[in-house]
């Protein structure tokens, strides 16, 4: 009886029956995850701000970090890897398998280079006397929060980059076998760009200001 009646219920943006943002659910879910992850980083960084403000004297970061030779270039590499990721997403939309695989590979290389340089950075910081719990050796007046916040925040971010590299390796292997879509690569890209964006904040707050 009511079939004709019921067909009148159309799927509309907010009226039910379709996505209000015209996105499939994996992409929406990734956006929501990133929102929540952003709040984890926000909590860590505002915690860092509170520690720093209540610690009294905070050391000059340039005395401890190799900003021009290491940290600046690794930031640059990470931003470049966002660009290669964007190319991979564009190629995936066009269905260009070779280009997707190649640029995902470049993005992975960028991520690995970033991680390698971060390992180098950590090593030299530790050689100077930095420990998770404070400072060893002759460096009076360095608050223990200085190395502690550094290790926890950059470590947490490094963990994100590492899982991003693993995620991209899986996607690249799938793409090489032709199993990819513009959608899945774009969702991976969202995560990668987010990790980059967070690094820009960390770089600014921990190294520059």
């Amino acid at each position, binding site marked *: 009886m009511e079939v004709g009646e019921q067909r009148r219920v159309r799927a509309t943006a*907010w*009226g039910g*029956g379709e996505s209000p943002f015209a996105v499939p659910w994996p992409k*929406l879910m990734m956006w929501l995850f990133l929102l929540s992850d952003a709040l984890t980083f926000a*909590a860590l960084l505002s915690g860092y701000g509170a520690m720093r403000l209540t610690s009294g004297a905070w050391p000059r970061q340039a005395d401890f970090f190799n900003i021009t030779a290491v940290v600046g270039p690794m930031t640059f590499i990470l931003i470049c890897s966002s660009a290669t990721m964007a190319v991979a997403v564009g190629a995936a939309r066009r269905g260009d398998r070779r280009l997707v695989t190649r640029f995902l590979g470049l993005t992975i290389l960028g991520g690995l280079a970033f991680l390698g340089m971060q390992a180098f950075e950590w090593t030299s910081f530790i050689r100077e006397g930095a420990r*998770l*719990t404070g400072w060893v050796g002759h460096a009076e007046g360095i608050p223990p*929060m200085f190395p502690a916040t550094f290790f926890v925040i950059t470590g947490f971010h490094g963990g994100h980059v590492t899982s991003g590299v693993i995620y991209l390796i899986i996607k690249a292997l799938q793409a090489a076998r032709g199993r990819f879509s513009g959608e899945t690569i774009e969702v991976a890209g969202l995560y990668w760009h987010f990790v980059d964006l967070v690094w820009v904040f960390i770089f600014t707050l921990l190294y520059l200001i």
Partner: protein
Amino acid sequence: MDAATAHAEAHTGHELSFWRKYIFSTDHKIIGLQYAFTSMFMAVLGGLLAMFVRLQLAWPGRAWPILGSLLPGGMPGGEMTPAFYLASVTMHGTIMIFFVLTTLLTGGFGNFLIPLQIGARDMAFPFLNAISYWLYPPAVIVLLASFFVAGGAAGGGWTAYPPLSALPQAAPGSGMGQTLWLISLAILIVAFLLGSLNYITTVLQLRARGMSMLRLPLTIWGLFVTAVLSLLAFPVLLAAAIMLLFDRMGGTSFFVPAGLIVGTVPVDHAGGNPLLWQHLFWFLGHPEVYVLILPPMGMVSDILANNARKPIFGYRFMVASIVAIAFLSFLVWGHHMYTSGMHPLLGTAFMTTTLIIAVPSAIKTFNWLATLWRAKIRFTSAMLFTLGFLSLFVTGGLTGIMLGQPPVDIYLQDTFFVVAHFHFVMGLAAIFAAFAGTYFWFPKMFGRMMSERLGKWHFWLSFPAAYLTFFPMHYAGMMGMMRRIYSPALYAHLQGLQPINIVVSIGAFILFAAQFIFLVNFFRSAFRGPKAETNPWGATTLEWQAPSPPPHGNWGAHLPTVHRWAYEYSPPGAAEDFIPQSHPAGVPVPAGDGQGPAPGGDGVQGDEHARGGRG
């Protein structure tokens, strides 16, 4: 059409093994029930811990030889040790807030109701949903293991303030017990986050045709906004928990100040800030309170309208006030810290935002009352617990206005007045709403009816016992009795309060005992209860158009379509006193069967949704 029919057959046609069907299921209904059963187990445990607390506070120093032989560690010779008492207080709070109410309301009711009420076949990502549940038992096991480690379970309160929670040497429960507490909570947070991702995505993406946001039942609005709150608040606690774990296990001192002395031994940590934990904790902690109360607010709105046989009063205001409460909940965390050391101006700011929350809360309360106005109320068990919710919520809400003001709070901070306040407004109110929801949706969950007679016994014992337990606490608190105190006999000014403490404890024992009526009713009805029809309550929302219990995939061949809002009760000129949401406009409602027309739909769309559902 053919594709959809074939798909529906695929959904219902093949038999899954017992393990796939009931244990490692990806069906939202099974996952919801798994959450509910685990939460019920934890609720009994959390209640039992409260009984230990009341036993000690009513008769401090008394020896209970039988209990002593059962718990030789916690009650040697039958007398409770301070460490066991503090562990009981801490674990009661932790279990009830995180492992019972959060998991039961969002995990249990959320999983069961969201796809059914929006007309979807399942959650957006059913596998992720299953993972979310299967993180919960490990968290429970880690938490329960903490009772059996050296020093016992955590004793620093459910808020885990450092340095008590940061230094293993600070107190007996600050050792391994506190570490396990943190790990357990971190696991549970991940479970909540995965669940929230699913709930938000599902409500936004998978609503049936015609189910616009402003046709959603208020239950869904409560659960949806709660998921948003969880998604934004829990990561902050996660970050704080990571830092606290580093303090405990990595030797950092994020939350340990310089110059601290434990006993007579100076602590070798330095440079941290214990206030930072309080800020981060309460930035979660206050939204968490609303994680516990928004789903109940939604659920009681639906049960109230159903049993009053009237449309909910002020639907749009109800929705707006849920959203307003959620937004404001992120701006009020400082009212937990008035006495922690805070600039008075900041206290005034937090007071202002806190008192503003009274406005949307009052809008909701008056709308509920207006819904009841001149209604022909059906006093079912579900309705009784809903009315109980209203009473308890108002009682607790009024003391909230008192506590929100720094000049009052300075005197009442950390007294039993606060204990009374939050037990009324979020503990009792939320659990009463959960009972109402269970009595109401039980026919849909198990296909059988619960006993109304036992339900009424349950209510008429629980409701007075709740007031008997918690109302005198206001008085004890105003007289200066501190919360979490091991023995009121330690202070001269508290000794006169002992009769009150005994009354409170007797009330608590009655309250705990009354819950076993519910458990008996629940399990007996699940197996032996009379068979439920599709729509026993004459309700309008979509889940009552599905069979009781709904099959895997919920809707058979066609998804329902939605033609009206969820509150079409007693419409003038209709044959029955309700019109289901899926009933097309302009078609007369058939009288008699109480089910409305079979939900219909369009094949292509059904297939589309199913694809989303399969993930």
